């Protein structure tokens, strides 16, 4: 069964509304990541976490917050959604160390902000 799951899989939001994207992993990995994927930009890191209670800013954190309440769960929060945040969002988990540098991606969430 899938080790990294995301919800919702599809979301339509209104400009100015709050959006929460959820991610759950059963890999028992310490690190979790949120990326967005847009044509011409590849995968860009928004926020990441080293473990429960930790969040770190990635390369494009503006307009996003993150929360890691437990080892398994990592959320991405858009407090005031804007149309520029329309994208596909991927969550990933992984551990860092000898031969353990693989990131495992969830199925993605398609977000449309109108």
């Amino acid at each position, binding site marked *: 069964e899938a080790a990294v799951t995301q919800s919702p899989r599809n979301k339509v939001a209104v400009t100015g509304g709050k959006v929460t994207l959820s991610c759950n992993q059963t890999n028992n990995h310490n*690190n979790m*990541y949120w*990326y967005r994927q847009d044509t*011409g*930009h*590849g*995968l*860009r*890191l928004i926020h*990441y976490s*080293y473990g429960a209670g930790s969040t*770190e800013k*990635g*390369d494009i954190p503006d307009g996003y917050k993150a929360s890691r309440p437990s080892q398994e769960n990592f959320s991405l929060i858009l407090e005031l959604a804007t149309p520029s945040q329309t994208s596909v969002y*991927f969550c990933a988990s*992984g551990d*860092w160390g000898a031969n353990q*540098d*693989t*990131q*495992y*991606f*969830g*199925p*993605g969430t398609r977000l449309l902000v109108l």
Partner: protein
Amino acid sequence: QQQVRQSPQSLTVWEGETAILNCSYEDSTFDYFPWYWQFPRESPALLIAIRPVSNKKEDGRFTIFFNKREKKLSLHITDSQPGDSATYFCAASGDSAGNKLTFGIGTRVLVRP
């Protein structure tokens, strides 16, 4: 600035040909270079990775060639198959980057039968 660059943005080859995907990077402290592939409507997944202790890594029909001096690497797909049609992302990481990867924008490969 773009830390990891990929070229070409798209590539079409015939079945059986060798596809060559290029990647270059800026940060000389990068020491881990994975390639991820992504099929349409799916999520990225690790394909193959290399560390600078070697200049070549092979896994079946997929080979990474690494040139540390020029800060360049390439992915060769030999005997390309239609099932190899996907977007390929070069990524990089190192001690200065923490436990995170920097991805290139990807190369879309189409293998025609």
